[in-house]
């Protein structure tokens, strides 16, 4: 603590430069916090995947449909507790930017398999008896102001009806809750029977099957049994855990983790040079002052620690301010990216990155001070 004024004096010597460097670090860590937060949303989706559920997709690609006839065959396999199915509907509401995660399902099969989605029994019953009925997540309903009784048109970018139209009409008959993960409350489910009757192609198929296993410990054996059952058929399957499936599904849109890593890599690489240059310049300008400190009895080690601490204070302060700003921005972006927050693990990671940044940028100038010759420095040689 007693060295704090000295540390502060070093940092504040060129106030404008320090402020701009600090701002650069702040911006980098705002980006870090935001991107890691978004990444966490997808990670949470993976973590929310149940261990007792398998996804059965086409071995060629999960965009390839599977025959509806597989349902009974999968159900008959040992270790299978229940089977449901879904398809990817690919829709937007009114404007292409209003993308809606919508899935045709058999409600009687689907909702019992997903106890984390809480739908009142009467609303489930309404969905079953209403051909064009749909249930939506609480977040999605809030986003577009939908309520039970509303008639909602969705435009599918994949599926056309037999009449050639891509606009599908739905009647909202229920709203489900996902209390454990609000990000699961953004989906739109409707009757597969309506979808299958009305669509112009691929009738009698489903996008993928969801299989609940009796014993999660036997999940991989059951998956292997399903794939064996359909081996050498025109529609071979690939059965995997729900987590693997979700991962593949997300990667279909984009490899979020890779994008996040690439952007952050570029940002921190630039920041490395910027902060490194600031630290280098700062030490270069203070050679006579550092020589005086050494003259007064500061050892090489003490001066090295002083320079490293300056880098540490700069980087950590910038990181914490940046992460705090990112945490503050998330609530405002809830409508765009869903429920995201800055977890303690991201804060910890951010702090670790800041420390690493400080060490990498502080060590070269700190090392330079150890080679500083007092006599030459004082003589300005």
């Amino acid at each position, binding site marked *: 603590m007693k060295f704090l004024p*000295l540390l502060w004096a070093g940092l504040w010597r060129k106030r404008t430069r320090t402020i701009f460097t600090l701002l650069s670090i702040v911006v980098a860590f705002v980006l870090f916090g935001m991107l890691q937060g978004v990444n966490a949303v997808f990670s949470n989706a993976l973590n929310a995947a149940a261990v007792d559920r398998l996804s059965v997709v086409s071995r060629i690609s999960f965009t390839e449909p599977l025959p509806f006839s597989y349902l009974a065959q999968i159900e008959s396999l040992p270790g299978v507790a229940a089977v449901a199915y879904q398809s990817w509907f690919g829709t937007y509401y009114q404007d292409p930017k209003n993308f809606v995660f919508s899935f045709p399902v058999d409600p009687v099969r689907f909702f019992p398999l997903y106890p984390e989605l809480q739908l009142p029994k009467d609303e489930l019953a309404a969905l079953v008896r209403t051909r064009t009925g749909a249930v939506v997540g609480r977040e999605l309903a809030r986003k577009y102001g939908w309520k039970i009784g509303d008639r909602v048109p969705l435009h599918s970018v994949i599926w056309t009806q037999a009449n050639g139209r891509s606009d599908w009409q739905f009647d909202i008959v229920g709203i489900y809750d996902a209390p454990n993960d609000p990000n699961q409350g953004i989906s739109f489910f409707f009757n597969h029977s309506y979808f299958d009757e009305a669509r112009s192609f691929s009738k009698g198929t489903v996008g993928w099957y969801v299989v609940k296993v009796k014993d999660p410990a036997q999940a991989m054996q059951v998956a292997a049994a399903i794939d064996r059952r359909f081996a050498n058929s025109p529609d071979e399957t690939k059965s995997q855990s729900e987590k693997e499936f979700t991962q593949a599904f997300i990667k279909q849109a984009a490899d979020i983790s890779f994008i996040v890593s690439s952007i952050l890599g570029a940002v921190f690489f630039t920041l490395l040079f910027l902060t490194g240059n600031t630290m280098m310049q700062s030490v270069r300008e203070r050679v006579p*002052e550092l020589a005086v400190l050494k*003259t007064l*009895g*500061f050892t090489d080690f003490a001066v090295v620690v002083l320079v490293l601490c300056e880098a540490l204070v700069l980087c950590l302060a910038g990181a914490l301010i940046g992460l705090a700003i990112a945490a503050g921005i998330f609530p405002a972006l809830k409508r765009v990216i869903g429920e995201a927050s800055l977890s303690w693990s991201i804060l910890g990671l951010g702090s670790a990155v800041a420390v690493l940044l400080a060490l990498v940028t502080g060590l070269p100038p700190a090392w330079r001070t150890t080679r500083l010759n007092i006599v030459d420095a004082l003589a300005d040689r």
Partner: protein
Amino acid sequence: MSAVVPAIASLKNIVKRYTRGKQNIEVLHSLNLEIPDGEFLALMGPSGSGKTTLLNLIGGLDRPTEGEVTVAGQRIDRLSGGALAKWRARHVGFVFQFYNLMPMLTAERNIELPLLLTSLSRAERRKNVHAALEIVGLADRATHKPSELSGGEQQRVAIARALVADPTLLVCDEPTGDLDRATADEILGLLRTLNREQHKTVIVVTHDQKAADFATRQLQVDKGSLTDVAAASRP
């Protein structure tokens, strides 16, 4: 008959060579010097004569190429860099021509710097800093930064910084070289007071005869050798 005063600094057969580019320059040639405890010594000589080099050797800022340097009972030419730094902190106070204060720190923070290396508490450090400020007559300028002080005041702060850790000797390199005559005399008077009243050994490098006249002994450094100019006798 005068009592024999023990030497605070003893330099034996000192040779100092520098390499500048391809040139090997011998600055000091087999130089011997004894500085008694409590002496006010002026080292004079023209530019490039080696007086600052000699001062740096006594202050432990530099090492001789050959010879022995013993200061405050310690053979300092053999100490490692870290040990020499700690030795300087304990035994030597430095005063430079251009003050060499930290521009961002106030006078009291500048003076406190040597004390940061001690185990003194904050309260003890403050007490010592204010005592040093009182000695140099700048108690009312404690919170001023160097840019808010005159040259003479800055040099007083530098002297306070040199004094605050109660060093064995004060090493001053052209302490009045950047000051007008009147201010220079004030600073030299202060150094003389410290020498007489606090019994500090003061070594001053100067090329100003008037400054040298404040000392109790003057030595001429010329072409790397020493000549005793005059042993001043003062009341």
